């Protein structure tokens, strides 16, 4: 088990290192003078902002210093929580901008991912080897999982928002409100949260249901299932065992899908102009705000790594084989 975790941590550490290095390298690989280019593209009107930005960039990139020094400085700044200053919201620090958006993204992604995983697994397990259900769950599942996240989001917004008028289709809360902890505001938040949540939930649901169905069929044909059947054990017991064993690869699958799920959340937020990281990225791209973009990138990488580690811990708790010190999950 110690080996399992140290291996995982090594991978995550390496991943973070690679991500940071990529983040550092890419601006320096750009042709031409990045500072001039950025300031020009930033298209900021106030002269003092332009000047501050130029000075800031020069200082930040530290082009007069040797490359290794620049690299070390980059790491140092990051550990101090200094991701630079946003251009779009100049002069707000990038970390402040991101901190404001993260709760919205987490509030959207955590419930939708967990719920779709749980419900999808149930559906898939239930459908497996039941002809009628299988013939409905499977096609629906494939259509859902083949849908681009933003498209389902647009369709839901159109049907339930624009046509039926049941839900608002833009923003995290009503324009007329200021964030506070009153009931009306919380209800308003939930109201705006419903559609983005639903569309994320539905697209992910299909994939989990299909994955579970396939895993259960595999488990139901395994030797231990056959043995139990030969001893006359009821289908209920066999299905329970099969489900339990089929859930394990689904947990690994959750870790593997994290990147896709995050990507889905980002584009869904853009459709609903939901004030999370996705909308931030859109703004950063539209305003050529590279510091904001890079900061968001690091945040997402970090978040995915933490989520991966949590899943690893859960896996060890659920799979006895990893605890018994045997080869369980692969690294």
């Amino acid at each position, binding site marked *: 088990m110690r080996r399992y975790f140290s291996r995982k941590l090594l*991978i995550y550490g390496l991943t973070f290192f690679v991500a940071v290095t990529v983040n550092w390298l890419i601006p320096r690989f750009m042709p031409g003078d990045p500072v001039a280019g950025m300031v020009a593209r930033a298209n900021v009107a106030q002269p003092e902002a332009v000047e501050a930005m130029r000075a800031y960039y020069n200082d930040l990139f530290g082009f007069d210093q040797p490359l290794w020094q620049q690299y070390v400085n980059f790491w140092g700044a990051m550990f101090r929580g200094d991701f630079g200053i946003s251009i779009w919201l100049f002069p707000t620090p990038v970390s402040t901008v991101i901190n404001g958006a993260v709760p919205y993204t987490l509030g959207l992604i955590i419930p939708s991912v967990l719920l779709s995983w749980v419900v999808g697994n149930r559906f898939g397990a239930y459908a497996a080897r039941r002809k009628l259900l299988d013939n409905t769950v499977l096609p629906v599942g494939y259509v859902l999982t083949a*849908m681009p996240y933003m498209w389902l989001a*647009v369709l839901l917004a159109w049907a339930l928002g624009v046509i039926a008028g049941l839900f608002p289709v833009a923003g995290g809360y009503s324009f007329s409100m200021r964030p506070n902890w009153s009931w009306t505001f919380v209800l308003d938040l939930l109201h705006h949260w419903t559609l983005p949540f639903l569309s994320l939930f539905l697209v992910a649901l299909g994939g989990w249901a299909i994955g579970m169905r396939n895993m259960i069929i595999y488990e139901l044909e395994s030797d231990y299932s056959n043995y139990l059947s030969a001893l006359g054990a009821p289908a209920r017991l066999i299905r329970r065992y099969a489900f339990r064993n089929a859930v394990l690869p689904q947990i690994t699958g959750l870790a593997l899908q994290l990147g896709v799920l*995050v*990507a889905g959340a980002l584009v869904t937020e853009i459709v609903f102009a939901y004030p999370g990281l996705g909308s931030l990225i859109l703004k950063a791209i539209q305003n050529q705000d590279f510091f904001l973009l890079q900061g968001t990138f690091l945040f997402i990488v970090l978040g995915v790594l933490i989520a991966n580690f949590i899943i690893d811990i859960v896996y060890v708790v659920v799979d006895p084989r990893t605890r018994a010190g045997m080869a369980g999950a692969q690294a």
Partner: protein
Amino acid sequence: MTTLQETEPREREGVRREALHFAVRNGKLMAGFGIVVVLLVLGLVGPLLAGGTPNDYGTRPMSPPSAEHWLGTTTFGQDIFLQFVHGLRATFLVGVIGGGIAAVIGMLVGFVAGYRGGAVDEVLNMLTNVILVIPTLAVLLIINAYLGIRSVAVQGLFIGLTQWPWAARAIRAQTFSLRTREFVDLARMSGSGTWRIISREIAPNMSSYLFMTFILLFGGAILIASSLDFIGLGPTEGVSLGLMLQNANQWSALQLGMWWWFVPPGAGITAIVGALYVANVGLDEVFNPKLRET
């Protein structure tokens, strides 16, 4: 040794014939590939028949589907059907390039890691895992934002470079189970080199698996490309289904009730990717006798 060489090809041919027998009778496979082929033909032939450039502004903006504009027009009067058929081309292209590159890298890494084992495997496995954990869309965001991707081909290239890890892992596991098999031992004893064994013995024995992996990578590349397009980091030249969605969203097609603008491109992507997935299930049933019986 001689008997093995004599029976192997015959056996393989038998398997192939049996697979074909099941393939043409498999509804999922036929329906899936049917849809893909129809859309592919539409993408290839449509632009030739329809004529005109997809992004040209027209005279009748915001009109719903009609005999003149089969799928209506955009806020700028662009013909949506024309955009759609051109977009299909871009979508297929990015799928082929992205899926193809990812498949090639995945196979190389998977074969070598699985066959060689040892330190080579350790290093490649570590590399695979690292790239597997990084959220690829985020990486593509940074790359595309800085480099300003102009063409569909370059977009496909970068997608291919980031999508291979899961394929490499799956192929590695398969190779691992094959490399101790008799016919591989035999080839090794008769002095064949690594590449020869991989290309002559191992790859042919998992060709169906490799093909299915490519299909999944193809579908995945299309989905990722559409997300990038939608965020505004798509190719700056031309038109794709994802860019159509982005335009529709940017110019408030939703609020204006112009459903004909945002429904076709999404439906096109869903149809291609969904049909590929369903065809893949069909293929799986054809190649794995266990799954046929239900």
